[in-house]
Every structure is written in C-alpha cells, then in structure tokens.
C-alpha cells in the first residue's frame, strides 16, 4: 500500500457540521480545474450528502451497488459531474447494512478505492470515530483534518487524532500482539506518549516499527468557518501540539473564512465555489487547494523521511 496510483486524501475531523463535505466538494472542484483527474468518494456511509454539495441532487448510482455486488467493479459506480475532470462515487441512500459495513466488505472497498485510476482521490468521511471511519482515514498518510475554531470541534478533532493514532498502532501490531500489551498498563492508554514509552521498554523492535509508521503520517489541518475575531495563531498552535506531544507531522493549510452564502448555496443544491467564486471563503479554499498541489510536488519527489530534505545539495 506504499505506492498508490492515486494520491488519496482522507478528510475527517470528528465533529459533524464542521464543513467536511463542503470542503471536499470545493477542493475537488479546484483540483479538477487545475487539470487533475479527481475523484470524490463519499465515505460517510451512514450519512452521505456529498452529492448535494457538488450539485447532483439525485445520483443514479451509489457505492451500495458495489457493496451489494450489483456491479462488478467500483469503477461502475462512478458518476460524472459538471466538470470534465471531476468524478463522484456517491453514498446516497445507503442501506443500514452499508452504514455498518462488515470488516471483509470494508476491506474489499478500501482495496478497490486504492486501484482507481485518478490523480487525486478525496475521501469524505463522516463524523465520529467509528472503526470504519478511522480505517478510511488511515488508508493514506495524507489525512486532512477539517475543524472549526471552537472548543467542541477541537476536542473532537483531538479525539479523532488520538483514535487514528491508536488505530494505526493496532494496524502495525497485529491484534494478538496488542492484546499482550494491553494488560500491561491500562492507564498508559490515556496518553499516546505513555503507551509508546511502555512499548519501547517491553518490545523495542515493535516500538520502532510503530514509530516509523506514525512518523510517516503527513497530516494536514484546515480551520473552517473562521471568523475575524478568531485567533489566527490557533492553526499553527494545534499543529505544534500534535508534533510535540504525539510526534505526528502536521501541516497547517490555512483558515477558511466563515460565509453565510455557503448556506444559500447548499439550500440551492449547487456548488458554493462555482456559485460564489470571489467570496473570501472561496478564495481561501482556492489557496488551500494550491497548498495541497504544492505539497504534492514536494512530497512525491523528496524521500519520505523528511519534508525539509527536498532542497537540492550544491
């Protein structure tokens, strides 16, 4: 899974209503406009509505068809959007079974996503920290957190980060090994650092591979619904805390200004950035899209160890 055909950007953040779907729609629109073949996947299996914000109120096919084996390949569920480079796998009207995907089905879906021939695949994740959501999120190292500058949202984001962190540990250590460590110190599960310390003492070899897997994350952070009285330093502070206390690399992509017109666009079931392209929020979204395209160049060329190592030596 180290060399995906597409760059997969899982977009999550824990709290509902922080604007994940809207962000995915807008980001996809800008990436497609930059000439990149882009696929949006609505991975919010229990509460899909990505199709609405990209302006397709009644999608003809959904991911259910793949999960229920009505079609042979995931590609058959892809639908076109208004833009020639932008495509969508909708999750509309998924059944109860699809929302609570069994493990084997989930694995089949994740593998199929990996094989899709697109330059960028954006995964719109649902709220909460269910295992389904977390597994989609750690599918790639490029997870983007969308949060709002409010304590509730930040609390959920930290919970999400921590959950993703432990889910990754669980993925690296197989289930049985994990259980062996579990009885050691229940208290140490409270803080990830304490858990890693415990692991280092008990099994240094395992700790190294866990640290390597966690260090490979290149998380991004976006602060959405940013109002002008909010603290502009907040985004960088959050990244700093995660880097310092979790050892997770996190890059701040920018603040996106709150805009009432987002609501109007959603109500009209049209894409916000197409309807209001010159609002501050749309410009902020475009800047974030450009930052993502820029990191793409750096990270795909540089060795994956250090981001800063991309400077050519004389």
């Amino acid at each position, binding site marked *: 899974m180290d060399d995906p055909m597409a760059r997969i950007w899982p977009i999550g953040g824990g709290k509902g209503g922080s604007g994940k779907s809207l962000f995915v729609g807008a980001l996809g629109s800008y990436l497609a406009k930059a000439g990149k073949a882009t696929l949006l996947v609505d991975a919010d299996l229990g509460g899909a509505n990505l199709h609405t914000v990209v302006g397709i109120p009644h999608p003809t096919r959904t991911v259910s068809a793949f999960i229920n084996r009505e079609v042979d390949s995931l590609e058959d569920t892809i639908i076109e959007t208004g833009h020639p480079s932008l495509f969508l796998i909708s999750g509309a009207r998924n059944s109860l079974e699809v929302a609570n995907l069994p493990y084997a089905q989930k694995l089949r879906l994740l593998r199929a996503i990996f094989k899709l021939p697109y330059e960028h695949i954006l995964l719109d994740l649902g709220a909460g920290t269910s295992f389904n959501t977390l597994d989609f999120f750690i599918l790639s190292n490029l997870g983007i957190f969308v949060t709002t*500058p409010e*304590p509730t949202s*930040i*609390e959920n984001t*930290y919970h999400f980060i921590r959950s993703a962190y432990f889910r990754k540990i669980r993925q690296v250590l197989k289930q049985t090994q994990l259980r062996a460590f579990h009885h050691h110190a229940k208290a140490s599960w409270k803080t990830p650092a304490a858990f890693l310390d415990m692991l280092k003492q008990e099994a240094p070899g395992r700790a190294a591979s866990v640290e390597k897997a966690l260090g490979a994350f290149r998380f991004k952070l976006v602060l959405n619904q940013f109002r002008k009285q909010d603290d502009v330093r907040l985004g960088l*502070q*959050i990244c700093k*805390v995660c880097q310092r*206390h979790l050892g997770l690399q996190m890059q701040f992509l920018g603040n996106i200004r709150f805009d009432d017109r987002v609501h109007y666009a959603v109500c009209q079931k049209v894409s916000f950035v197409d309807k209001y392209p010159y609002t501050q929020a749309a410009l902020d979204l475009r800047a974030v899209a450009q930052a993502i395209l820029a990191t793409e160049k750096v990270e795909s060329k540089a060795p994956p160890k250090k981001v800063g190592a991309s400077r050519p030596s004389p």
Partner: protein
Amino acid sequence: MKPFDQQNYYEVFDLPPDATPFEIRQAYKAAVELYGDDAMATYAFFPESQRKKILSRLEEAFLTLVNEKARADYDQALIRNGELEERLRYKGISKKPIPLFELKSSHTMKHGGSGSSMPESPEPADMPLVHEILSHQELTGNDLKRIRRELGVSLERIAQETKVQPPLLRAIEEDHFDDLPSRFHLQGFLKSYAQCLRLDPQAVAKKYMERI
C-alpha cells in the same frame, strides 16, 4: 524527538541555549498561551493533571532561565551531563545599541573607503609631512592641499562634511583671494576645513589669514 517531560529547559521553549532574556520572556508568553487555562489549542488534548504539570514545568524553566545566577548554574549542570557545550552557552554579552548615525557612517566606511569621520590614527599633527607644514609661520592654500592629500581625504568629502561648496574650497586651496568671501566667513570655512582634517582650527585659520 525527546518526550516533553525529558526535554531540558531550552528545549521546552524551543530555544537555542544562547537565547537572550528577551527571547526567553517571549517564548514563555507563547507557551502560556498554548498551555494556559484559556488556551483553545490544547483544550481537551491533555488530561487536566498533565496540563497543570506542563504549566508548572514551564514556569520552573522560565524562573530558572530569567534568573542570571540560576541560569548559569543550570547551564553548568547541562554541561556536566554533556547536553550543552560551553561555547554555545549564553554569556550575557548583549550587543550595545548602536546609534543610528554611527551605523550609517560605518556603512559608508565599508563601501566608500573613506568615512565621514576622518582618518583616525595616527594623529594628523604627528605625521612628519603634516607636522613640518604646520610648523610654518604661514599656511598657503597649497599647504592645506598637501596636508589634505597626505591624509587621503578628497575635496568632495570635505565639502560634504563642512557643507562648503567645492568651488569655494578649491579657491581656498589655490589662493584665489578674489573668489573668497568676507574675512569673517572665510575664517569660519577655514576652521571647519581644519576640523575636518582634525587639525587645530584656530591655528590653521590664523596662519592662513596672515597672508591676506
């Protein structure tokens, strides 16, 4: 990366070991904003007890580093542990503020070769040729010119310093008495000319004026 509770006082603030007291204050302020009671960025990130522990450690680090004596002791302890090298330690040498004008002149010195302040050593009056010329009873324009050349100062520089027009200075050096202003003004010009070359203004003006 070292876990936070094992980092030394400089590392917890993300500071180099030679950080100035000012930088330490700034870093402490930023850290309190990050971990403080009202901080949004760390809200719900830590268990409350851990956050309090971090805060008290930050305070302890700050109080050590802003106290000159305590900091020196702490540095020595770090050096003994091999965590710090003596040469990287903060020595309390802060740069003295540089007056804006001196800064400007040192800048021109570097690039123009001759600065606004005249050659500093040796004293012009101690130089053999200058001394010999100055020992005359009278000073001609040509004498002044020779001294100026000996000191390596251009006429333009003197004009710039004294705010006397170059044609006037040239008239002084070439003894064109008809082009010179009144005695009163001339005396003033001669004095500033001499001052510029760090000669005795009174004597130079007097010896030049003798001949008119």
